């Protein structure tokens, strides 16, 4: 380092590096300037100075200096390394690793650079590169334990299981075991890691033998037993598996995985035929329940397992199960029973049981007596008055869940009248009102609940959400700020710092409804940025976990990170952003927010409007390009101010107008987000719905075709798929005007692989009608088919038939109705949309939001 300098400056240079590493940026800069006074062209010093400036957020200067340094000393590995670090700090991993590799060409055995490169390679999952870097590091420094473990990991992720195990063994043989707790723990963890590799390799026998050998050093007993159970089950050593599963159940009887393992072991051992399995499982639960009467899960599981043939048994068990909750006043009962609502007959049984409770309480002040059987010894005498309340609260939630909102409101009002001091009741009422479309009162009710316990963050959060649902942004921000840390950080920035994504999603939706695209985009973008951060955060663990030898957690982390964008927050924000981009593409006047323009456009005919819109789009694109140019001119000045001022991301460009201006083509941006969704949410039919919308606007007919086929593969009978098939036929296959400019080859593919494959010989309406008849149970599909029929309808007669389907809203939730209204307005006639909205208002008279 700094070798071309005289010895005095050489030592100064070494100091410079030290200052940088200890984050003493001012001193580092001073030292660098000192050297540069004498040797203004010294490449490595220039590069180091650049790196220092980068740390104090002077990006532009940093890049200039580093590049200049490199130009002056192309043969220096330091310059290349610094160049890589600079890219790395901007998360440009590919560029960074290219620079590192260049540095290594000059100094192939530089451990520091090799380590940095390895970090990048595991970060980007470039496993081939990772293993070779790791091999080099191990050869260079075999004395360091991290190098062994990391090399084992490299083999593991490449599925060289045998090799990975061998490396761990070789390494373990060399260490002298310490007796202190920490080193025992570390050894146990490493062995459990090795064991997980054996298991992953399918070598269950070896895994079990290994477990036997390490049983005395493993601290995490649950993990140990779980591994034993899994491996024994895989080998069908059922008797032994049963024993281990029972041991696990004794440790924790409320873990459903343990129960499942136990059942699997016993059932395979006894070779129980498929149709008798539920019965046997129930028996096993009962046995456990007898010896552990306080445990809930063994009592709860049979309720899921029983079929309609055992209705009486079901009712009896349900009765004694729910009494436990009612007598203790556990508000979570409704959530606990949710899975039972999948079976219609169970829903009826629940309703009958609870209305029976209600009547009995009314008449005799007590729950009905139970035969004194094994399940529940019930005391005689009057029930606590609170039981009446909990029964009414449950019934309110029950009717809400099955869509009987009048019944739900009746019960919740009676419950509140009975006991007006229970906060949960107000929460339940807020939820019911929300389902009624009465978002205003729902928010008021959530606020009433919040005020009853100002120290409860959950209530505050719910209230904030309900306020946002009816666009009360100011109230929401004020409320949510009560629980963010105070000080100079504003609420929104504090929430951004805490990566509070539910809030950003909700407020983003609110701004979309309020036609504030900049603010909406800002918040949705914030969510996307959090995920970039989550991925970047891995860097800390690549070094930390190897040092701490917590390999099992580390491998889990890598797996989680691989899929992290499939999280509901990411997909939700991405979907909302794509919809916003589509809207901004279709209605570009929104971008300037000028209402007059919108009003003027509304008065034009469709053709005229389209013309005007495309003109507006073009002029906006020009404007954006000009701004871009201007920005570049001001680049240097901006760079100096930049983020250095300490403003958070939400505080710079707080209304998102810059962000919005920066997007030149909304369809390109939408397509970028879609690529993420297609990768991480391919099972979500909405992904393909949006893909179609974007493809059709970009005249990408093959992509549109692909979207339709994917949607049909995921959910062939859904409203989304049916409508996509119909639209592909009408908007692409049969629309010669639109597709006239497309390549004939493309159209050829669309017509051979298109809707004909799905629709077959039937007419398009025949296809829709068939699905509608088949899915009479689902109101969503029925209404979706109605919408599809309206798209197809060629004459008034067909249109009114389709409208008839659409106006039968039985079973449709308010949310579904709202979505339908919005979809309809994109293609239906105004009077049709209006009459649909009338039907919705009739079904949801309390609705307080515009549809």
């Amino acid at each position, binding site marked *: 380092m700094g070798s071309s300098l005289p010895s005095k400056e050489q030592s100064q240079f070494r100091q410079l590096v030290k200052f940088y590493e200890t984050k003493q940026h001012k001193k580092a800069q001073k030292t660098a300037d000192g050297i540069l006074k004498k040797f203004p062209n010294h490449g490595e010093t220039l590069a180091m100075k650049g790196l220092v400036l980068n740390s104090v957020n002077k990006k532009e200067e940093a890049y200039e200096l580093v590049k200049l340094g490199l130009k002056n000393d192309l043969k220096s590995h330091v310059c290349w390394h610094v160049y890589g670090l600079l890219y790395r700090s901007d998360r440009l991993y590919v560029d960074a690793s290219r620079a590192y590799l260049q540095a290594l060409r000059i100094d192939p055995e530089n451990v520091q650079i090799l380590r940095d490169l390895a970090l990048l390679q595991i970060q980007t999952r470039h496993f081939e590169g990772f293993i070779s870097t790791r091999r080099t590091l191990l050869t260079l420094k075999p004395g360091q334990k991290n190098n062994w473990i990391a090399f084992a990991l490299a083999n593991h992720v490449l599925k060289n299981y045998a090799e990975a195990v061998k490396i761990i063994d070789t390494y373990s043989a060399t260490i002298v075991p310490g007796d202190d707790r920490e080193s025992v723990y570390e050894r146990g963890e490493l062995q459990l890691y090795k064991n997980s590799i054996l298991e992953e390799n399918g070598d269950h026998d070896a895994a079990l033998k290994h477990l036997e050998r390490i049983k005395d050093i493993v601290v995490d007993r649950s993990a140990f037993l779980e591994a034993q159970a899994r491996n024994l089950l895989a080998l069908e050593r059922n008797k032994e598996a049963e024993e281990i599963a029972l041991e696990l159940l004794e440790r924790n009887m409320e873990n459903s995985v343990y129960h499942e393992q136990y059942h699997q072991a016993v059932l395979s051992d006894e070779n129980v035929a498929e149709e008798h399995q539920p019965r046997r499982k129930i028996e096993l639960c009962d046995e456990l329940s007898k010896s552990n009467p306080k445990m809930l899960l063994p009592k709860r599981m049979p309720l899921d397992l029983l079929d309609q043939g055992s209705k009486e048994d079901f009712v009896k068990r349900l009765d004694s199960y729910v009494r436990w909750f009612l007598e203790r006043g556990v508000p979570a009962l409704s959530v606990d029973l949710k899975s039972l609502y999948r079976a219609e007959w169970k829903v009826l049984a629940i309703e009958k049981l609870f209305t029976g409770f209600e009547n009995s309480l009314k008449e005799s002040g007590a729950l009905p007596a139970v035969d004194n059987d094994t399940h529940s010894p019930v005391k005689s005498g009057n029930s*606590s*008055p609170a039981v009446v309340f909990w029964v009414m609260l449950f019934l309110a939630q029950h009717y809400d869940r099955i869509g009987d909102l009048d019944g739900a409101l009746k019960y919740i009002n009676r419950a509140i009248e009975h*006991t*007006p001091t*229970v906060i949960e009741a107000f929460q339940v009422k807020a939820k019911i009102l929300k389902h009624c479309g009465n978002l205003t009162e729902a928010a008021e009710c959530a606020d009433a609940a919040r005020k009853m316990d*100002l120290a409860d963050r959950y209530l505050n959060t719910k209230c904030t959400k309900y306020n946002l649902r009816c666009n009360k942004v100011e109230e929401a921000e004020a409320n949510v700020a009560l629980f963010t840390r105070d000080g100079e950080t504003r609420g929104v920035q504090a929430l951004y710092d805490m990566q509070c994504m539910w809030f950003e999603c909700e407020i983003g939706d609110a701004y979309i409804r309020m036609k504030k695209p900049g603010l909406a985009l800002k918040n949705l973008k914030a969510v996307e940025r959090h995920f970039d951060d989550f991925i970047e955060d891995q860097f800390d663990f690549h070094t930390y976990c190897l040092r701490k030898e917590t390999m099992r957690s580390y491998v889990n982390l890598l797996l989680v990170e691989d899929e992290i964008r499939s999280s509901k927050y990411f997909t939700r924000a991405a979907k909302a952003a794509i919809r916003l981009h589509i809207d901004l593409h279709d209605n570009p006047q929104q971008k300037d927010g000028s209402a007059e323009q919108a009003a003027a456009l509304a008065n034009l005919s469709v053709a005229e409007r389209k013309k005007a819109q495309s003109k507006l789009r073009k002029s906006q694109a020009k404007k954006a390009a000009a701004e871009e140019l201007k920005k570049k001119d001001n680049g240097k000045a901006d760079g100096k101010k930049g983020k250095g001022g300490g403003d958070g991301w939400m505080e710079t460009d707080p209304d998102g107008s810059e962000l919005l201006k920066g997007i030149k083509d909304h369809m390109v941006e939408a397509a970028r987000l879609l690529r993420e969704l297609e990768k991480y949410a391919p099972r979500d039919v909405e992904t393909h719905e949006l893909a179609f919308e974007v493809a059709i606007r970009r005249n990408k007919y093959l992509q549109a075709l692909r979207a339709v086929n994917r949607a049909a593969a995921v959910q062939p009978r859904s409203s989304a798929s049916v409508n996509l098939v119909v639209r592909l036929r009408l908007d692409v296959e049969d629309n010669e005007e639109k597709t006239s400019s497309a390549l004939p080859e493309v159209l050829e593919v669309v017509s051979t692989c298109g809707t004909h494959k799905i629709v077959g010989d039937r007419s398009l309406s025949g296809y829709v009608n068939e699905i509608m008849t088949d899915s009479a149970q689902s109101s969503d599909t029925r209404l979706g088919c109605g919408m599809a029929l309206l798209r197809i309808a060629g004459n008034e007669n067909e249109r009114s038939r389709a409208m008839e389907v659409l106006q039968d809203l039985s079973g449709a939730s308010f949310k579904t109705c709202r979505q339908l209204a919005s979809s309809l307005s994109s293609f239906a006639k105004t009077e049709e949309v209006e009459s649909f909205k009338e039907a919705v208002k009739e079904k949801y008279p309390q609705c307080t939001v515009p549809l």
Partner: protein
Amino acid sequence: MSPRQERAAIEFGTVNEKNLVQLQRLNTALFPVKYNDKFYQEAIRAPDGFVRLAYFQTILVGAVMVRFESNANGSSRLYIMTLGVLAPYRERGIGAQLLDHVFELLASHPLCSNVSEIALHVHTENTEAIAFYKNRGFEVVELIEKYYKRGVDPPDCYLLSKKVEPRGNGS
């Protein structure tokens, strides 16, 4: 009155600015009089023990609020501003436990050493309450006509009182 039942197990709680609205909801359900914000702000600042909430199975079902009043002649009394239990939870000794709490204040609270009387106003129609207090040694002292301003019919009330021996400073 129905036969006296076993006393239900309750837990006492205190009021603060975080849960004040619960007390308001309770009182709104219990009393025809609507108390103003000042009344509740005083409740928060009341001396320790002068406001007690009663929780039955974690539900707030009752409360008592008392005030210390000194008379011109140097004697003083405890005045019960509110004492009530939600209707479905009555007949379980919860009100009695709240009143017992008032007696305990009298016996041990430093402010109460010279108190010679407990007093309260009861709506003339509230026979249930009148019986409750009479059972516990209170007497009707006075009928006050037109005591309530609005929303209560008839607007009259009784003043109830129970004399007690002041425990004095030293004891």
